[in-house]
């Protein structure tokens, strides 16, 4: 069954997590930053399912954590997009550098 070692799956999810982190560091547009966060959440989900399958096959905790993370990611994306649209209405831009009223 486990012809592919677990560390290779962890390699993929780690690389995906740091890809999302690179996007979060370099982008200054709110929508693309949100997309990077989605990538990071997905890499964590891969980890949960892989650990569940390889190390504790008789349990289901990893699957449930994945389901709850997907649900919370959906809620988070909806709220974030509502905030982005509201910000665009008042500032006519969704660049984080343009919304600095509450910075100091």
């Amino acid at each position: 069954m486990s012809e592919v070692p677990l560390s290779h799956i962890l390699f993929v999810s780690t690389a995906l997590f740091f890809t999302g982190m690179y996007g979060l560091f370099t982008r200054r547009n709110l929508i693309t930053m949100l997309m990077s966060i989605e990538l990071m959440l997905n890499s964590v989900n891969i980890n949960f399912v892989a650990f569940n399958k390889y190390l504790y096959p008789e349990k289901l905790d990893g699957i449930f954590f994945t389901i709850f993370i997907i649900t919370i990611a959906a809620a988070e994306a909806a709220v974030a997009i509502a905030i982005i649209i509201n910000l665009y209405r008042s500032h006519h831009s969704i660049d984080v550098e343009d919304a600095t009223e509450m910075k100091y």
Partner: protein
Amino acid sequence: MTGYQITFYLISAFVLSMGILSVTTRKIFRSAIWLLFSLMGIAGLYFWMDVQFIAAVQIVVYVGGIVVLIIFSIFLTQQSGKEMEKAPLGRTIFGALAVLFGFAFTYFLIQQYDFTATGKLFDSDVARIGNAMLNTEQGGYSLPFEVVSILLLAAMIGCIVIALKIKPTEK
């Protein structure tokens, strides 16, 4: 190398290349489409790991819900054909360095730890998942299930309230 392994490496390469394209392209609409492909690849990875339920949820919620929402908000807030301005060189270099260091450090730690797979067969039957989700006894997930559903309801109402346009007379 068996076909099982080759499938895994092909899907992983697809997911990673689409993810990298998604964070580096300068056209925001293309970025969303690359993200869509990457999420589909992750659903393929779930199919490969034999958890069909999570793969179906991934396709329905992420590909059918979140990416469509992101594309709508792109259409609402900017000109999709316009290129985003390039990040300053210093930020790109420091971001890449921080990410490379973090990746090397994390993967070094993962390699040190010896994961021993149990080799038992993984049973992710949907009936089993459903029973555990509504089980109120020890090891059941009915309380988190209800909490998450209340959270989702609160988030939906919150979105409507935030995005609602205030009429000028009420200001």
